């Protein structure tokens, strides 16, 4: 099931981040090929690959690219979302540090497809070493003549705010503002960064593009499921024997990922629950892990693939305490723009805290569920819905644990 490593094929080389190593393993050949292709043909190849956004939303990448208005004559921007911050996710850090040229080559190809002359790479401010590695690769690519001939790359450092991983929040931040998400429509492809058509793609998504151009969309599509092509990088952490990043087909099951790749459950060795796609993904119980990890497989299981951050909890883990950590995160990171999110994340955090501290009230659980549900779907961006996923699923699936704390 693990099959061929594509994105991580060079990770074991100590010099994998250098241009020399990248070229020695076939790097920039896809860019040479793409230069002989019409932009529309590149987009068609990516559509045929069934590549879907790997930052969290899972939107079909080629389709996104095709939303750039035909006949637009002004600038178009390509923006790379390297603001990795979804709790439980660490794949983009590896890609930036260990294979930065794959991202640059993917950017060159994507920029040709959407006719962008400038690409911005938004790297979270805390990622100092990944930024240094990527910035060095950019300089190498300029010196080698890949960049600066019709396509320029600007590396932009964030300043600490989870919401800037939301694509319109990221655009606000790139424009020199606080990272408030923007109302859609207009979508970024129509009116994005600096008012111009903009495509925002995740690091891992774009790092796949050279391979798709090199080996064909059909090849990539065949690696995955009917509705999602390829492999992806799963970040596995929590109570497993071998936490780490694993590349596998999106058709792998959650059970295979935990048992076969990550070495099985530690703690008392018995699984209690697992978050399959970063902290915003609803939790699954131990009897719900025979699901494929593709976007639609996890959606059908009532959760989401998200950023593929898998957090494993064994039977000794307190689910109310885990929810407290998660609720604190959403209360801290709410940008404050929309009332339901700003108020509910803070209120729910307070209620979960008093339950965990033994001061819970009988009505608290139903109040949390009610508050969570009322706000869902009412806000500008997906942040609040991402908080509602854990609020509802942790309590609905492990209610007895919360009730035991309240009864004390």
């Amino acid at each position, binding site marked *: 099931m693990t099959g061929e490593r594509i994105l991580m094929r060079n990770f074991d080389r100590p010099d994998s981040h250098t241009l020399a190593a990248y070229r020695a393993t076939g790097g920039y050949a896809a860019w040479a090929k793409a230069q002989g292709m019409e932009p529309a043909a590149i987009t068609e190849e990516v559509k045929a690959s069934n590549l879907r956004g790997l930052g969290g939303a899972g939107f079909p990448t080629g389709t996104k690219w095709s939303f750039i208005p035909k006949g637009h004559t002004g600038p178009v921007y390509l923006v790379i979302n390297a603001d990795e911050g979804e709790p439980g996710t660490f794949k983009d850090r590896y890609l930036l540090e260990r294979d930065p040229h794959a991202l640059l080559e993917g950017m060159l190809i994507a920029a040709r497809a959407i006719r962008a002359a400038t690409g911005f790479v938004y790297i979270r401010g805390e990622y100092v070493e990944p930024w240094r590695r990527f910035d060095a690769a950019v300089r190498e690519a300029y010196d080698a003549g890949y960049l600066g001939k019709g396509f320029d790359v600007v590396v932009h450092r964030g300043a600490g705010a989870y919401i800037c991983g939301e694509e319109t929040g990221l655009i606000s931040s790139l424009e020199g503002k606080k990272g408030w998400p923007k109302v859609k429509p207009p979508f970024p492809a129509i009116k994005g960064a600096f008012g111009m058509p903009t495509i925002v793609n995740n690091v891992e998504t774009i790092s796949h593009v050279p391979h798709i151009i090199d080996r064909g969309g059909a090849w990539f599509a065949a690696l995955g499921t009917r509705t999602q092509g390829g492999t992806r990088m799963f970040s*596995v952490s929590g109570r497993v024997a071998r936490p780490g990043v694993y590349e596998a087909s999106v058709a792998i099951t959650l059970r295979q990922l935990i048992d076969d790749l990550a070495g099985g459950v530690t703690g008392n060795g018995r699984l209690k629950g697992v978050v399959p796609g970063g902290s915003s993904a609803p939790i699954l119980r131990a009897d719900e892990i025979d699901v494929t990890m593709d976007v639609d497989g996890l959606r059908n299981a009532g959760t989401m693939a998200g950023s593929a951050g898998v957090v494993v909890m064994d039977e000794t883990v307190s689910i109310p305490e885990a929810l407290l950590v998660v609720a604190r995160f959403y209360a801290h990171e709410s940008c404050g723009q929309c009332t339901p999110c700003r108020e509910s994340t803070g209120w729910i955090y307070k209620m979960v805290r008093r339950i965990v501290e033994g001061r819970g009230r009988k009505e608290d659980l139903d109040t949390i569920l009610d508050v969570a549900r009322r706000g869902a779907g009412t806000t500008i961006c997906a942040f609040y819905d991402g908080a509602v996923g854990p609020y509802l699923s942790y309590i609905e699936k492990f209610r007895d644990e919360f009730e035991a704390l309240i009864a004390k």
Partner: protein
Amino acid sequence: MTASRVQFSGEQLAEVRRLQALYPDRRGALLPVLHMAQDAFGWVSLDVEEYVAELFDLSPAHVHEVVTFYTLYFRQPKGRHVVAVCHNLSCHLAGAKTILGHLKTRLGVEVGATTPDGRVTLLAVECLCACERAPMMQVDDRYELDLTPEKVDRILEGLR
């Protein structure tokens, strides 16, 4: 810090112009220039905000709104070193609470405070995305991974 001391060098001003020219609207360079200002002046005081606002022809209120939105800009003097412990989910499962408690005891300060000698500012932060090596913390620019209380002690030893 007095207002008169908030002044980039000629070289730094050239870097500000270079950064501003990278963006279709120079305001795009606001976050990078604020990073520069923090490095140059130690922290982002109201005087620094006003100075940066002038460089962008923006209102100080706008710059203040930006500075207060992000966690990496310090609005009061910080220690010579910043120790930021992740307390999100995977680190929680790996014992972040023990690490944070150990640091509080060793440093004798609460989260958000700086040791009286100005050596270390202690923070608790959200996911730094190194969950495979939890519990972890960031010390200035470096990620410190697979923490134990003993390893934390060794790291603190190295901070002067």
